[in-house]
């Protein structure tokens, strides 16, 4: 089994609905606040950004790092989380 966190599994296991940005894997309080400041107040909006980048995890990681100052691990985790969600539900 891959090393996914509980948060990851919780997110990927069901439609995200109206979950906040903090529910994303890799996004904690600090990063969540930064995203909300930029207007990404819900996980779905971040998903929108991910889709805009054509579901490219690399680009999304870069974007997240630039936008919030996330480190590689956090950004990668978030990208992976979204990718899997898309694979499951999109």
């Amino acid at each position: 089994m891959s090393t996914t966190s509980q948060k990851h599994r919780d997110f990927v296991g069901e439609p995200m609905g109206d979950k906040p940005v903090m529910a994303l894997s890799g996004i904690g309080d600090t990063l969540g606040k930064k995203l909300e400041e930029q207007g990404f107040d819900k996980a779905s909006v971040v998903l929108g950004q991910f889709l805009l980048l054509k579901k490219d995890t690399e680009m999304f990681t870069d974007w997240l790092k630039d936008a919030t100052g996330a480190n590689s691990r956090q950004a990668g985790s978030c990208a992976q989380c979204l990718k899997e969600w898309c694979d499951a539900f999109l």
Partner: protein
Amino acid sequence: DAPPQSKCCKKQQYSNCKTNSLQILSQTWRLKGRNEDPEVTQVPDPSKLTDECLKAALLKHGVKAGPIVASTRALYEKKLRKLLLHSNGDGELNGAEKAELYSDSEEEQEEEEEPDEESVSEEEQQKPKETKKIQSENNKAELKFHRGDFSYQQCFLLSSRLRAVPSRNGKPCSKRHSKNVLKSSERSQSSCSQILAGISKPSATGQHSGLRSAVPPASKTMVSNDCSSVSSKTFSITQMVQEMESRSAVSDCTVEELNSSSVGGHCSRSYRFDMNDLDKSRSTDQSLYYTPKDVHPSCGMKLPQEKVKNILKEALPETKTTTTRIYATPRRPIKGAAQRPIQYSLPHTLVSPVTLERREVERRLVSIHIQILFFVFVACIIFFIYVNVQDSTVLALLDSLSHCFDKEGGTLLLPETEDTQALYEQD
């Protein structure tokens, strides 16, 4: 600066972009210190471009960009900048972005003496000039190595040297071999280079000479094995690591020996720890233990294996004390990580946590049998007390008790009291 874009076709847009950017071009190119023909280059400054132009430019570099909106624009600009750097640098690659460039040894690119890792691999095709280049590159590589840079070139250095050698001999098999090797090593070069880089980087500060001598054999063997699998490569690298640890200063004579010995046993030169083995291998002209299946039994397969084992045993206890911080994980005896006792993934008894809890509770509490026994024992004691005590106070107590209990369940007590009375009367 923004031309109308809605109706232009892509080409027109691009030409518009170009014309717009020519002005910018001169500025940026001046900054870069080049006086090249403006028409040669692409649009340099991504931030001045329109969305359409940016998209076209990215497409030119082979990147299919998504919609360029406010949030994605910065990202695509950055990407374009990176791409421009790459295309302008002519192979100045720092990151591992384009793997094909590493593995692309088919192209005969410029023979510039630019100290580029990839250009070295591309130059391998040019055999006549190899020897000179090799030496110069070798020096450069060594310098680089000492500086502690990524030593991708180390991987290719002596591979090129090796290819030059067999070509000198003019043996057809070697030529074929080298080509095959090139192709086969394409894929693995990136991995091996990364591995080598990883190995060389930490040890760059340390054992320079040891690595230098260790790297050539490793690269040599990697090159010479046309059918070398990844496992054999890792094997060689682990051996290399062990070599580094066990020998601090394998001298240049090994390198020279390798050079001289490569004449004979090019195709299947194997990695040797000792000088003796090198001599043997030179004489036998056979690979010994890279791919054991290919090995001829006559060439003393067992010997090197034994030596390998010995060296492994020597080296492995040493691995913990090395500075390289590299663990030869594929070859480590299975002792469990970090000398911990072997832990099986699953516990022997597959029990649910509920049963475990129950067991815990049961362990703590007194067992049921003992409880029942105790209860019976106490009941007997009380019974005997009732029976034996002849005091009237007891009876009075009993009466009082019975009065108390009358309200609740008197019927039960009545026969009891009658019994006790009967017993009492008996006494």
